[in-house]
């Protein structure tokens, strides 16, 4: 039970830190790195529900699917970042907003 609490607290810390970093970061690559940490937090939270007497296969399956979906989102995000850089020449969201107007 203590281990479950530690893992759960860690997952919440990772999740909230990643969200805060996504709000503050001024670079799209950094935002994507924050998203990766957010996925780590989510995976750990899902996995925590299976820790205890043994390992729950359903929770493991959800973690597996979460990993693949996170990887898909991140690959599309990286492709988008490259396209944005080609078009606008910057990765700063504030500058991008000004350039668009």
């Amino acid at each position: 039970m203590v281990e479950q609490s530690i893992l759960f607290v860690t997952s919440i810390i990772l999740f909230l830190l990643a969200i805060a970093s996504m709000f503050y970061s001024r670079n799209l690559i950094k935002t994507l790195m924050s998203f990766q940490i957010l996925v780590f937090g989510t995976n750990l939270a899902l996995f925590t529900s299976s820790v205890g007497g043994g390992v729950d296969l359903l929770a493991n399956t959800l973690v597996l699917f979460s990993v693949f979906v996170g990887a898909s989102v991140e690959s599309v995000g990286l492709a988008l970042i490259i396209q944005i850089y080609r078009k606008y020449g910057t990765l700063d969201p504030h500058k991008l907003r000004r350039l668009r107007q």
Partner: protein
Amino acid sequence: MSVEITLGLCIVLIITAVTSLLSKTVSLSLILLFYSSIALNIIFIIYGAAIIALIHLVIFAGAISVMLLVTIVITGEANLSIGNIKKYILTIILVIAISVFLGLNIAKELTVSSGMPVNGELLEFVWTYRPWDLLILIIILAASMVTALNLLSRTREE
């Protein structure tokens, strides 16, 4: 598994993740992200989810790290601006305080798993009981692959 090992790994995971977010150098940020991924994988392994750890390692510490590196090389962003550092540190302290308070309260409500047998049965379980989810996952992966290829291919106007 002893509590000390779990606590140590969780501290390593949080420190590497925070330092990765705070670092202004790309290479350091990437390396720390890689280490945080490794710490998470060790947590998975010590709790008996070896397949998850393997897939997580291959995807996040392998493929995604390489893709991030390629993006950084293409865009030539050597320094990552993180904005106001004081705001960041205040947020980190606040987040850790809230998480410890909330997490410890919510963790009391968590139920302990029934203790089903583990090793080598995950893929069999997915194949037997979750085939539709697997199909949707394959569609998502294929769609993301097509989208990324479409985005990266140059248009005629360029």
